[in-house]
């Protein structure tokens, strides 16, 4: 077991954060000759909201893709729930309890909101293809159970009114919410959000922030998010990793990060040699 015994901490708003859920050790990722991520280490603890920030091209999305198992780093180790993780297929990652949303929404446009969210529960359906097609035996019961779980999420994210609407007809902000719903439907241990607020107006951002906090609070889901909007990041997260040019330049609470000179330089800009 790796580090699961380490003590958690208590956030300023009184939430108890647990031990390490995921640990990334000395990660280096290269695309051919380009080094996207260079020797980065950090951890994500049980129940916390962890943000990864950085200027464009800092390697944030690559980092998220490593966490989600989509990329395998050339060097370094990824530990999840105390076990070292080797290269994995996406469905294996999903079974481990990791779900994600995408920067450019990846939903099925022609399907209803309800059906889209139901796809998030595919991992939990065991009935065979034939039984499902025939609506027979355990398949029907399974669908009822899963529908109930999905309805709770629909209620939670307040999208009852668009339950039967095809996703293609929805405005951007709502699509984002549906994507979050689908990720939640998998009942993940770790939820990865890739720029959940990108392209949203202030009101939509506020709504989304509230939902992220509620998800964390209500389901105890650990959340790791990438976000550009600094205000949102500082308000939401418990701890922040700051990346720049593939390197980690800061790590700590929002207050610590805000006063970190390297971070200020990266954001306000200093001359690079």
């Amino acid at each position, binding site marked *: 077991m790796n580090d699961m015994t380490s003590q958690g901490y208590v956030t300023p708003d*009184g939430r108890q954060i647990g031990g390490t859920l995921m640990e990334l050790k000395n990660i280096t990722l290269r695309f051919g000759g380009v080094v996207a991520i260079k020797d980065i280490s950090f951890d994500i603890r049980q129940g916390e909201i962890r943000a990864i920030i950085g200027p464009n091209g800092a390697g944030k999305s690559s980092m998220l893709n490593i966490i989600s198992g989509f990329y395998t780093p050339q060097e370094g180790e990824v530990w999840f729930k105390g076990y070292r993780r080797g290269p994995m297929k996406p469905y294996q990652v999903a079974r481990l309890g990791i779900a994600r949303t995408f920067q450019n929404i990846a939903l099925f446009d022609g399907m209803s909101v309800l059906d889209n969210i139901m796809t998030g529960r595919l991992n939990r359906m065991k009935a065979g293809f034939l039984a499902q097609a025939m609506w027979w035996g355990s398949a029907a019961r399974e669908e009822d159970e899963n529908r109930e779980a999905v309805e709770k999420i*629909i209620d939670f994210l307040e999208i*009852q*009114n668009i339950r039967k609407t095809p996703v293609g007809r929805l405005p951007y902000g709502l699509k984002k919410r549906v994507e979050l719903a689908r990720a939640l439907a998998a009942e993940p241990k770790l939820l990865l959000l890739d720029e959940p607020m990108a392209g949203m107006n202030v009101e939509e951002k506020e709504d989304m922030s509230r939902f992220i906090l509620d998800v964390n609070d209500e389901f105890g889901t650990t959340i790791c998010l990438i976000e550009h909007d600094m205000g949102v990041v500082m308000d939401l997260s418990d701890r922040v990793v700051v990346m720049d040019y593939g390197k980690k330049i800061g790590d700590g609470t929002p207050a610590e990060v805000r006063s970190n000179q390297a971070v200020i330089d990266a954001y306000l800009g200093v001359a690079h040699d």
Partner: protein
Amino acid sequence: MAERLTPSGELRSVPALLARNVARFGNRPAYREKEFGIWQSWTWAEAADEIRALALGLLALGLKPGDHMAIVGRNRPAHYWGMIAAQMCGAVPVPLYQDAVADEMAYVLEHCGARFVLCGDQEQVDKVLEVSQTVQGIEQIVYTDKRGLRKYDHSRMNALADVQAEGRAAAQRLGPELDRRIAALDYDSTCVMLYTSGTTGKPKGVVLSNRNIIETAKNSAEFDRLDHREEIVAYLPMAWVGDFIFSMGQAMWCGFTVNCPEGAHTMMTDLREIGPTYFFAPPRVFEGQLTSVMIRMEDAGRIKRALFRHFMGVARRVGPALLDGRPVGAMDRLSYALGRLLVIEPLKNALGYSRIRVGYTAGEAIGPEIFDFYRALGINLKQLYGQTEASVFITQQPDGQVRSDTVGVPSPGVEVRIAESGEVFYRSPGTFVAYYKNPESTAATKDAEGWVATGDAGFFDKESGHLRIIDRAKDVGRMADGSMFAPKYVENKLKFYPNILEAVVIGNGRDFCTAMINIDLTAVGNWAERNNIAYGSYQELAAHPQVYQTIREHVAEVNRSVASDPMLSGCQIHRFLVLHKELDPDDGEMTRTRKVRRAVINEKFADLVTALYDGSTSVHTETEVTYEDGRKGSIKATLRIEDAPVFGDKRQQKVAAQ
């Protein structure tokens, strides 16, 4: 149980009616609510069990006779149960508007001295907690939806389900006390206290007794032959007297089913699924539906459009006549029958009106076009006139005598007279007991003989014998030259255009009338999309020259129609502007029931009013707005002011003569 065997001759309280309904309709559905996508239902017996458990729980928490219990949340069975449970304990339920901001809520909670508050969800709990920092006396909060409340300090707070569980556990101990309290309720006990929306000044607490509610429910149910098979959808604010009469008074008297939608935003889907037989909506709901039907028809294929146009034409000619039982030719009947098959019934189904037997609208004037549209579909839509102080019903239209410009004949048991000033007075069994803690206002409104001043000016139509309402009595004024000024009359004409959401006409004591206009974002936005007009915000769209042009045409048409009435021709609009923001209850510009507050608008937009009268063609303004979370901000805009053509006007003739 003892109270369930009360003889039917002594139905003197809502709990007594509940007991009767359990005995008579025990296994019929009393309440339905859509939750998690499925309609949940409770029979009268099940509902009575839930209510009793809640009442016992409230008793255990210390609810005393004469206490006030505020209820704030959306329409849910649990909230209706909360009101009945409070009555059982001898307390007075006080439903509040759930979209009220904390300040407004603070006034009401302090005024009624609520010890208990039943909240729908976290949002309402937060508001009540905020209020309780300044208002003393709020002792217990009960909430329905647990979400987000797990970590709150629960020393004075309980989930409704937990209160019920405690009540069930204490049934043996507290049952006799509860039965005693239920038995003590009589016809003069307070049934409910409702706060008026307060078009002027602070809200007033209208005390309504069991007599008021039950007599009114009985009379009005008989008027429309309502029975236990009706289905209604409860979606209007619980704090509004109409909802209390329909979803509580009449539902209890008749024993029909109250259906609660999943939420405000799913209302239209839920309405369609339920297909109510008895339905009430303010004109703006009917307007909104008609607008969306028209917009969707514009997008439909050519054949569908042609069918729709043809058969709606037939329906407009034949439908209302059929409803009123007037003679209709065989060809027309056949044509209408075909239209029903192809267009009307599918459309009614899409709107959720397939089963409507009786529909009412009230609160504002409804446009004749809109009214006729629904009548043409064969929907028995009628108008009524009422107010909180009357337990709603003052006048209503009997079947077969429906007109768009009247509000009907006095309801059963109601006497109506018109004072010399033109103000309408009434007296009825539904007339309120008093304004709570406000004897002066009570005395000013209700005289010793029980006549109540409505504050509305009106007259009885000589032909039909129906009442016609012109305007608020105090709003009817005089222009500088002494001619009559009835702003609402003109505003209503303006609002009948789908592009215009709200209008405020100014002119009391002035030389001529002017107007501030709010565009309807749905209708105008759709038009903009259709014509490839880009806009970034409400403000930008409102200021668009082509929008101004359209509004100018509407104003001109209204002026022409106003000019045809010699008494009111002075009310034509000479100058107008399109407002840069929607009038909003959160900003105090309207009441929660969406009635324009003239004094507030005159004061808040004083710069605009000045500009309307000093001849300038544009005005720069900055307006404070309140966001939904209570924060304040401001918007700046430069508004154009345009002249509108006027017709046959004395003043203009004078100018021409010079």
